[in-house]
């Protein structure tokens, strides 16, 4: 049932050549599918290859081998990017622009009609709680506010597929809960969400399926409940530790 697959990755590897003899395998033969309408959590310790995988999916870096398809199209097609929303880890935008200005800028990159852009800009600023910060340049934003405006930028094109790299970094507990609720609401609207995080409890609360990456290899993949049964884990943290420990042997 190909039409239900939002993301299909086959044999994806990324090797960095360091000089003539040394090479670093950032991602090793990754294969996974993300179904349409699900929330997929990509877990792994720092340096496990999560961000590398996301950058490959977005075409920001190039694979050493393997293929990526998003919503049935090759991932490098410009038209497929119209359907993707992306929140980078530590989102940084043009610091001298205000929140509404940055949304206008990206809205024009998406070729949104001015009327639609105006409506979405106001709704999104309200949604992320920045409706009263319109006069502030981004250089005066706190880390949490930058994360919120980043989320607004990611949702600006009303994407079918949302990719979030560490979406709750910099958010306080209330902000994290609001983001979780928002992601749940987006899922109920039929959107597919892929998020990477090392905050295990966050992922546990919202993900339908997870993949655990370590040293570039996908060690476990499946529904959280199934994985916990398979690995005899009491919670997600226990599962994570057992999988990582197992990989060392």
């Amino acid at each position, binding site marked *: 049932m190909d039409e239900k697959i939002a993301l299909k990755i086959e044999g994806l590897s990324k090797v960095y050549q360091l000089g003539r003899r040394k090479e670093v395998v950032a991602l090793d033969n990754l294969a996974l599918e993300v179904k349409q309408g699900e929330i997929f959590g990509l877990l792994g310790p720092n340096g496990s290859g999560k961000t590398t995988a996301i950058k490959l999916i977005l075409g920001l870096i190039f694979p050493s081998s393997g293929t990526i398809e998003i919503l049935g199209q090759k991932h490098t097609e410009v038209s497929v990017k119209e359907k993707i929303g992306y929140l980078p880890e530590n989102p940084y*935008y043009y610091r001298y622009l205000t929140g509404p200005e940055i949304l206008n800028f990206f809205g024009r990159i998406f070729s949104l009609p001015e009327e639609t852009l105006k409506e979405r800009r106001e709704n999104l600023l309200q949604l992320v709680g920045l409706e009263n910060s319109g006069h502030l340049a981004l250089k005066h934003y706190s880390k949490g506010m930058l994360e919120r405006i980043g989320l607004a930028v990611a949702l600006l094109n009303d994407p079918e597929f949302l990719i979030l790299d560490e979406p709750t970094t910099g958010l306080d507990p209330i902000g994290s809960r609001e983001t979780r609720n928002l992601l749940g609401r987006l899922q109920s609207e039929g959107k597919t969400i892929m998020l990477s995080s090392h905050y295990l409890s966050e992922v546990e609360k919202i993900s339908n399926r997870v993949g655990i990456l370590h040293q570039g290899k996908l060690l476990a993949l499946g529904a959280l409940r199934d994985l916990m049964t398979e690995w005899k884990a009491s919670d997600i943290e226990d599962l994570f530790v057992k999988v990582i420990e197992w990989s060392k042997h």
Partner: protein
Amino acid sequence: MVKALIIGLNTFRETLRLKSYQIILIFALLLLGSSQLFSFLTPEEQLKMIKDVSLSGIEIFAALLAIFTAMTSLRNEFETNTISTLLSKPLRRSEFILGKFIGSVLAITLSVILMAAVFSTLILIKQHSLEAGLFSATFLIWAEMLVIVALTLAVAAFASTAFTLIFVLFLFLTGHLTGYGLELAQQAKNPLLQALTKIFYKVIPNFENFAIRDEIAVGVSVSLSYLLKTFGYGLIYTFIALLLCLYFFQFREV
């Protein structure tokens, strides 16, 4: 093209806010203004000197600003990682590069206009009139800057900031000397040297084609066909440099 224009306008806005851009421009304007100080010369010599020195000054400062602006416009995107957000959107790499070119050219156009305005005011004070040749000279300096912006972007697309700065300055200086180099090599009668200078002469843009200050200083006018031919020559180099830039940038990971 519309998206390139959006990137271009944003790059232009960003450049105008850069302290270093403002400082170089203010310094250039002050220096141009100070060419009034050649008061020890006769009025006629003073006028020639002002034209010659000011046009050289405009060219050198415009070149510095062109290199700096184009280089910074690309480097900042990488340093702040805004490029990864941008390229995750429906934006082609070619549109991004074209946008950077448009933005840098807009910033350079503004600085050339401001420097030319100061220069023209000085001439008006001294001469009470402006000859068409001054506009021709300024136009060719601007055309030269198109080439320099494109060359800087091409090098910055794959190289470090330091390398870009040194290499493009080297090209700028060499581009002014290749004509003389060719003449000298022919006198030296060394086949290897002659071949090398010929290659340099053919590959590196001859920036002396754009410099008509000597003619302007002594009141010799330059024909329209020369202006158009030189402008076309500049456009060809600009186009090639932008293609090279795009080629290098296609393989750059962000």
